[in-house]
């Protein structure tokens, strides 16, 4: 390396110059705005996952309700069966076709007298 280059390199390497005061303010501002952007992004990410979780919960709950509802026999059917079940043996006799025919036959015999 020539003497000129050596001299220029040593001049440049040893040089120190204070930058304007505004430079640090600008850096500080940039760093702070970056921090707030990162915070906002984090918050948005939390909100995103929270909304996903909430949606999943709603879907699961609705599916469960629909599934269980479809498995339960409607009340009116249950009631109908219960009525029949409540009739009992004696009452059942009244509704029996055989019994009706018997009553009808007896009524006919009685009227023929």
């Amino acid at each position, binding site marked *: 390396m020539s*003497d*000129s280059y050596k001299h*220029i*390199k040593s001049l440049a390497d040893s040089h120190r110059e204070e930058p304007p005061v505004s*430079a640090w303010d600008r*850096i500080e501002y940039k*760093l702070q705005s970056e921090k707030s952007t990162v915070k906002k992004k984090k918050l948005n990410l939390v909100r995103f996952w929270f909304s996903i979780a909430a949606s999943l919960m709603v879907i699961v709950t609705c599916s469960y309700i629909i599934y269980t509802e479809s498995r339960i026999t409607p009340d009116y059917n249950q009631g109908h069966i219960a009525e029949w079940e409540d009739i009992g043996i004696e009452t059942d006799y009244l509704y029996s076709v055989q019994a009706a025919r018997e009553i009808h036959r007896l009524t006919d015999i009685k009227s023929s007298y």
Partner: protein
Amino acid sequence: MQSETNNIIIRCKKGDPKAQKSLYEKYSPIFYGICLRYMKNRTQAEDLLVESFYTIFSKMDQYKGTGSFEGWMKRIVVNSCLMQIRKKNNLNLHVDLENAYNLKEEANAITDINHAELLKMMEDLPTGYRTVFNLYVIEGYKHREIAEIMGISINTSKSQLILAKKRMQEFYKKKHNGFLRSN
């Protein structure tokens, strides 16, 4: 001293504003000097300094502590300067190497100038000359490396350096002939 710097680095990685300020106070005079050498004026140099420090603080996690910390930061500053130059300037670097070699070189060695004069000389250089001169003479890169960094041919890098040297010698000659005394 080293442990103090390490402490500052660790705190900076955690985003401690006080540590960032002390790192800035320690190194900004050096880096502002670098920016001044690459840029045409002080406003551009300040912009670059801000950009460089912002990059340093943002990429602090990437410093693994293996090499010199100052060297690592310096590379960021120089790269920021080169990126800015590429973005804003048409370097117009295509100069015939033969023509550059044919220029008669002055025998004068530039050995008695001060930093202000050096800055003035560099400010007057076209962007391409100044950039190659900075990278070759001051940063110590080889022409092959400069060619890679700037995306130019090795011959272009060589020709730019010769032309820069020629310009600077003209400036130096003028100064010695007393043209600059009136300034």
